[in-house]
């Protein structure tokens, strides 16, 4: 009798084995450590594989907080606040990280013909997109625009000065990139793999435990925050997005957003509504996503190529242009929302 029961149990286990096999396909590997905290006026999400994930995440966050102390406009003693407060008066001594970031920024400003200009601060302040729904007068914009010129940033060793009174550095869009690069370095030093997301900037280190790529959702610029037009599968790279959907107001059927064209003083009107840039450095992906958004499609492709970067550029007609280096890495899902995929040749 017991043999008979054993036999039936064996058959049942065999049947369960069949079903178990099919249910466990694609699973495996340990769950990553995941944490979201706030810093740099945005949220910082870390997803780390390996047992020491929490320790590494803490170390990374401490570093982000240190950098916030250097770059924040809202901290009086930050490097950026000191430079701005002393504009037109004197140069101020700053940290090495600030010098490095400024030098990289000025380089891209040069090669993009000023499409990215870190001295756009006075225009940002004039429009105050986050709090205002009023379009400033043309005169006010023209007057303020005179203060915008990246050539007025003077770097001497560890000191920085803005040439003219009332000029302002806007470090908001680059600080997150610098911080993301530092987090990536911490992950690499610790030998962990993971993803760090600081606002619209993401650093990817290695692959998941099962060897698969990390999946980064690319937002539908005309949908809500969780609506996406596709997924990028990435490892060991950085990615940033700039879009006209982040902060904006609509007046007389015109969308006024927060990314300004330093040539006009108005929100950029290049025909692009979103620009995603993938490259090895988060500092670069941050700067380039803004620069390409301002430059428009044609000029952006050259800028990306010259900087070993790839991109997903979406225009106002919902065409999604994907550069050739992302072939096979971008899974397009935007068809249902009226987007059209256009894969570009190299």
């Amino acid at each position: 009798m017991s043999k008979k029961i054993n036999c039936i149990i064996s058959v049942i286990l065999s049947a369960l084995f069949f079903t178990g096999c099919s249910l466990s396909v694609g699973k495996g590997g340990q769950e990553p450590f995941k944490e979201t905290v706030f810093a740099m006026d945005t949220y910082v999400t870390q997803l780390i594989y390996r047992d020491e994930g929490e320790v590494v995440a803490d170390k990374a966050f401490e570093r982000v907080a240190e950098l916030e102390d250097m770059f924040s406009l809202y901290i009086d003693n930050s490097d950026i606040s000191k430079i701005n407060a002393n504009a037109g008066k004197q140069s101020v001594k700053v940290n090495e990280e600030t010098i490095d970031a400024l030098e990289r920024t000025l380089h891209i400003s040069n090669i993009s013909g000023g499409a990215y200009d870190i001295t756009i601060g006075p225009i940002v302040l004039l429009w105050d997109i986050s709090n205002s729904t009023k379009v400033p007068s043309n005169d006010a914009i023209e007057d303020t625009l005179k203060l915008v010129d990246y050539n007025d940033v003077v770097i001497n060793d560890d000191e920085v000065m803005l040439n003219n009174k009332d000029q302002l550095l806007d470090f908001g869009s680059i600080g997150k990139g610098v911080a993301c690069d530092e987090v990536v370095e911490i992950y690499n030093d610790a030998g962990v793999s993971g993803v760090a997301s600081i606002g619209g900037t993401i650093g990817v280190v290695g692959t998941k435990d099962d060897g698969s790529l990390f999946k980064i959702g690319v937002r539908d610029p005309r949908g809500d925050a969780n609506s996406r037009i596709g997924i990028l599968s990435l490892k060991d790279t950085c990615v940033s997005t700039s879009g006209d959907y982040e902060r904006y107001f609509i007046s007389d059927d015109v969308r006024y957003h927060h990314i300004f064209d330093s040539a006009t003083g108005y929100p950029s009107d290049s025909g692009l509504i979103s620009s995603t840039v993938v490259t090895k450095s988060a500092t670069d992906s941050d700067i380039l996503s803004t620069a390409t958004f301002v430059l428009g499609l044609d000029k952006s492709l050259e800028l990306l190529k010259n900087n070993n970067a790839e991109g997903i550029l979406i225009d106002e007609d919902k065409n999604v242009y994907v550069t050739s280096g992302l072939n096979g890495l971008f899974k397009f899902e935007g068809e249902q929302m009226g987007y059209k995929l256009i894969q570009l040749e190299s």
Partner: protein
Amino acid sequence: MKNEVVNRKFITKSDIIIILIIVAIGFGIFLFNMNKNKEGDLIAVVTYEGEELYNIELDKVSEPYNIVINQEQNLVLAVDKGRIRYLSSNCYDQICVNSGWLDYYGDFAACAPFRSTISVEASGEGDGPDVMLN
């Protein structure tokens, strides 16, 4: 004596029926799960040296293109709408190239000398991003 024989009988007809029902149910669930996965779009998962390199949604490919996995090894993929293949390889056996086009769920090709694989899977639930780029 007759009763003893009956008691020693290892398995009866009704036992066999029960066993067959259990096996049939189990196998049915197995097939159901397999077929459920087949309903999604075709995804080509490309690996090289143990790591996933590409995850290509084959049905969404608008123009044919090639992917160079390794220049020195001349390991190149051809990607077309709904299908993928090893286009070239410097490997000695050329099994990967001779595998031809992979265009159906479950298709698989490998270049063992250069430790690369292509498997055609189906998209399904749980295929969302790890993080959103906002």
